[in-house]
C-alpha cells in the first residue's frame, strides 16, 4: 500500500483492517497524537502543511525500503494536513508480518524515516498567543526580536 496525506480525520480501525492477511501473525501500528505541550510551552493547536506530491512519493519510497529490509506482509502510512487540535491523530503507520519482531522493527523504521524525510511542516500555536514553525528557528531570531530600538 501507499503512503498518503489527508485533510480528513484518520480512521485507524479501517486502516488496520486493510493490513489483514492470512499469513500475518502480528500487527504493529504507531499513532502520533497532537499533545498539549512542547519544550515547556503550552500548545493549543497546530497546523500541518505539506508538499503533497513529494511527501506521498517519498513516503511510498520509505514503505518500499521497509518491505526490502524487513520480513513484512503489509505496510501503510497516513499523515494529516491542515488545522489539528489536541488529541487528534496526526500520523499513523501500520505493519503486518508473520512474527512480531519484524513488525516492530519495520514500524519504527517507517515512522523515524517519515519524520526525518517527508516535506511536512508543523506550526505550533501557544497559550501565550505566539506561534512558530518547528525546526525553523535560526540563531539570532531571539536577539533580533528582543533588541531595543536603536535611537535615531
Amino acid at each position, binding site marked *: 500500500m501507499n503512503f498518503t496525506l489527508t485533510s480528513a480525520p484518520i480512521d485507524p480501525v479501517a486502516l488496520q483492517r486493510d493490513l489483514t492477511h492470512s499469513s500475518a501473525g502480528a500487527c504493529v501500528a504507531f499513532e502520533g497524537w497532537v499533545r498539549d505541550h512542547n519544550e515547556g510551552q503550552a500548545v493549543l493547536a497546530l497546523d500541518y502543511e505539506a508538499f503533497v506530491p513529494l511527501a506521498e512519493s517519498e513516503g511510498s519510497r520509505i514503505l518500499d525500503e521497509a518491505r526490502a529490509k524487513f520480513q513484512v506482509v503489509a505496510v501503510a502510512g497516513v499523515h494529516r494536513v491542515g488545522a489539528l487540535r489536541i488529541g487528534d491523530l496526526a500520523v499513523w503507520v501500520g505493519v503486518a508480518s508473520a512474527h512480531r519482531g519484524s513488525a516492530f522493527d519495520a514500524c519504527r523504521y517507517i515512522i523515524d524515516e517519515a519524520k526525518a*524525510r517527508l*516535506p511536512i511542516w508543523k506550526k505550533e500555536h501557544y497559550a501565550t498567543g505566539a506561534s512558530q514553525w518547528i*525546526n*525553523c528557528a535560526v540563531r539570532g531570531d531571539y536577539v533580533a526580536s528582543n533588541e531595543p530600538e536603536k535611537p535615531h
Partner: protein
Amino acid sequence: MPKLSIQYFAILREQRGVAQETLTTAQTTPEQLYEELRSRHHFTLPADRVRAAVNGEFVAPDAVLPEGAEVVFIPPVAGG
C-alpha cells in the same frame, strides 16, 4: 534566461507573502536561486538548511535548473 515557477511552503510562504510565483532568472542552480530570493525577500533560513525539489523530486543544491522547472524550496521538516 530560464523561466521558472516556484512554490513556497510554511515559513518561506509566510516570509515571501505568496504561495507561488513565476520568474525569469540568471541563476542556474537551486542554491544560487535561493540566495537571490533570500536576499530579495529577507528569508531567515540560510541556504544550508533548505533543500530543493525540481519537478517533484529532491535535487542536489548544485543541480542545473531546466527551462520551465517547477522549483520547491523545502525548509527543515517537522512531520509526525
